[in-house]
């Protein structure tokens, strides 16, 4: 097969996101990842719901389906179950995927259908012009919360892990190289992969992630998790995470006799969800925000594969192979 390039996956449609929107960078990361995943154009399907991010399928030159609000997870489940040979991606946002589509989100994860979901989290409703979303920080002042929200936000990682998810990763729109690496890991995962992208809405929620994306400070405020490596972060690589009294603690290497060997080593593959939940839910300023593949445990078998296998087994066992066989099975009688 001829090696495809990112441009090969670009569609001829004009990209209509606002200038400065984080979605542009995510699109570019996806376009970079796609040729490396190894599927042909025609075997890739992008499915989206409604919202700014959901315009995404129009911008990739694959099969695409722009659905209705909140239902991308359900449409994609149908596509993949119908034809497991396809490489299926879901593009959704914090409103589409976690509010109106929240039910489909958890059930997608629970079934562990082999699809890849990219959650564009900008903590705001952009397309409807600036109302708070299920991930908006408590107290956020928006058009529908002029005095600040009184709601607790969802943490997408917590929901995914709570729904027995087998893969959760997080990246930031402004680190496209990392995003591409993570998306490749997501694509490799056999089961539902959830990748949360912290994405800036330049118009309605500018700098919502400013405290962790700001170039001067970000290395002290985020931690890149890599499987098998100790949890070290900081501009000077002098900070780390350790577990004490069932809690995560940020420590400084060299202080109080702490060395690298005291730190946690990231095990993304463990089935034990507790540590992944703690890591996924870490928030600045108490903790650094975790990026990278937080959880990628070996999924037993994805839903779509199990369905095919069950059909094969039953088909093999049964004497009924046509509708004719079925109609004449069981109790029938002759009228002469």
């Amino acid at each position, binding site marked *: 097969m001829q090696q495809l390039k990112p441009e090969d996956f670009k*569609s001829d*449609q004009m990209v209509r996101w606002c200038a400065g929107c984080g979605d542009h960078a995510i699109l570019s990361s996806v376009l970079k990842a796609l040729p490396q995943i190894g599927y*042909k*154009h*025609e*075997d890739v*399907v992008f*499915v989206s719901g*409604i919202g700014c991010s959901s315009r995404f*399928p*129009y911008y990739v*030159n*694959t*099969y*695409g*389906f*722009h*659905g*209705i609000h909140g*239902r991308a*997870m*359900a*449409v*994609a*489940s*149908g*596509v*993949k*179950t*119908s*034809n497991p*040979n*396809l490489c299926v991606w879901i593009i959704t946002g914090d409103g589409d995927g976690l509010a109106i589509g929240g*039910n*489909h989100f958890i*059930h997608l994860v629970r079934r562990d259908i082999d699809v890849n979901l990219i959650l564009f989290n900008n903590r705001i409703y952009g397309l409807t012009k600036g109302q708070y979303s299920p991930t908006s920080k408590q107290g956020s002042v928006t058009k529908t919360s002029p005095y600040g929200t009184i709601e607790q936000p969802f943490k997408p990682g917590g929901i995914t892990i709570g729904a027995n998810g087998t893969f959760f990763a997080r990246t930031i729109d402004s680190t496209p190289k990392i995003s591409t690496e993570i998306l490749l890991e997501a694509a490799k995962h056999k089961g539902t992969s959830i990748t949360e992208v912290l994405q800036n809405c330049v118009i309605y929620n500018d700098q919502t992630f400013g405290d962790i994306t700001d170039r001067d400070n970000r290395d002290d405020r985020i931690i890149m998790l890599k499987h098998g490596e100790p949890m070290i972060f900081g501009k000077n690589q002098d900070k780390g995470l350790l577990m004490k009294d069932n809690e995560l603690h940020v420590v400084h290497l060299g202080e109080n006799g702490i060395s690298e060997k005291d730190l946690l080593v990231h095990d993304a593959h463990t089935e034990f969800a507790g540590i992944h939940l703690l890591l996924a839910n870490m928030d600045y300023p108490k903790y650094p925000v975790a990026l990278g593949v937080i959880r990628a445990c070996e999924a037993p078998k994805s839903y779509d594969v199990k*369905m095919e296998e*069950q*059909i094969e087994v*039953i*088909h093999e*066992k*049964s004497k*009924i*192979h*046509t*509708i*004719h066989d*079925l*109609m*004449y099975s*069981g*109790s*029938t*009688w*002759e*009228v*002469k």
Partner: protein
Amino acid sequence: MSKQAKVIEIEEVAIRFSGDSGDGMQLAGTLFSDTSALYGNDVSTFPDYPAEVRAPQGTIGGVSGFQVHFGHTQINTPGDYCDVLVAMNPAALKANIRWVKPDGIIIYDADQFDAKNIEKAGYKGDPFLEEDVTGIQVISAPISNLTKESLKDIGLDQKSILRCKNMFALGIVSWLYDRPLEHAVSFFNKKFATKPLLVEANTKVLYDGYYYAETIEAFTSNFKVKPAEIEKGTYRSINGNAAVAWGMMAAAEKADLQLFCGSYPITPATGILEELAARKDLRVKTFQAEDEIAGICTAIGASFAGSLAVTTTSGPGLALKGEAIGLAVMTELPLVIVDVQRGGPSTGLPTKTEQSDLMQALYGRNGESPVVVMAASTPSNCFDYAYMACKIAIEHMTPVILLTDGFLANGTEPWRIPDLNDFPDIKVPRVAPDTQNWQPYARDPETLVRTWAIPGTHGMEHRLGSLEKMNITGTVSYVPENHELMSHIRENKVQKVARDIPPLEIVGDEDADLLIIGWGGTYGHLVTALIEVRREGHKVALTQFNYIYPLPTNTREILGRFKKLLVCEINLGQFANYLRMQHPEYPYRKFNKIMGLPFTVKDLKEAILRNLED
């Protein structure tokens, strides 16, 4: 077996088994019905059961019934009124006595008519004094105690023993109508293959019931219903839900497509999903979704991916699916939505039948959102209309709503197994593999149908979606003129389906003044009423609509032939209003019932006679 009593030959009989929902009345009724069908009678059945799995014992709310109508002649309905009512407790009597014919028979379990149960049923004293049973033969049978007596040495616990009492009742009725017992016994052998004690117990009680009826001399005669004159062929018993499932599987096989059903359980439609879920041997994929919306959305995804996709539901579910049906309209993908109608609004009467989703099916969506709407009219022709719904959906690249109802879904009748070769081919409008410059919304100029390109096909990569589409290219378009054009195209595309549907037919007297108009599941009752009214010397005609949107092309001409049009339906007049909209030039009379029950032939005959007069 010897019979002392005299045997009387009769044409048809209706029997209603009724008792507490734990009394096994559905099973007794089904065994009786299957036995009659195997014997060669024409049969129609209807279960009448509560929504509660086990409502409080002995109360009216917990009464479960099963009516079997069988005969020597053609049987089109389960019968309004029954010749025999089996009442296993006072509540069953109270709930069902209104359905007993004035010269009918009531057989009741005397042991269950104690003070406590009588009070629970809402009677003050002796039920047979409080109810008017003039002319009815009331037979008191100590069914519970005789069942206990019959099984006292068998080694079962008391609870299990009492579970067999339905078979005692079945035995009594089997003797009364000269039914063989072999079918029931072979059923026990299969059902309880690993529990020989239960086979023995049920068989013994069944025979003891039979001999009891023969012995007691309470019945002055027993009755013989000769086999019916039925078309030759191989038959089986089928209900509407199974017939829908099988019709869709037949269409998938004929079209050489994989069948995918995305659905959420809902009474009374669940049987279709269950039937399909069992058919992995035919490679059917079923997806039990997290809700009604996901049910239809997974089906739309599967349709995009190239499956024959269906979703099944009932009224409340159809309401939830509305937005997604619009998505299928916009994306012009084949999709079949089966709505097994039940009593509404809201949760309404889940286990009862109604025809009140018609307007919802036609118009219950945002925007101009035309879909094909059709309706099956008998339990077995659910197979044919499910097949046709799939054929139309595929060939016209459109959603199709198929309406059935609780009556058709659960009603059973003998079905002559059809030959699939007699069914029309299904042509899948796939893009030809070597097509150059394919455009997703380019159409056949005659049918306005676009072609179907399936993910995995090289060179046909395209995007579909819920936003308005530019004609031909299928890209997103906000152009005002294009929206108007596309609205007309979508409407005309569905209208053109009319060319593929059969003309409306008339049953009865072509030169009558009065045309009875029905649609969907009321056919059996309407045609029975028609036959009876004509037998009494009146001229009358009937037409039954199976295709509602679009209407058959000769609709106007047929309606114009008659002086009086009487639209009969189980709602407040939705089809009459629809006809008024489509053909305002005619006056329409209405006959409506909305009790959660099928029509009774008696009510229909009265309505017909009344309308013949004025």
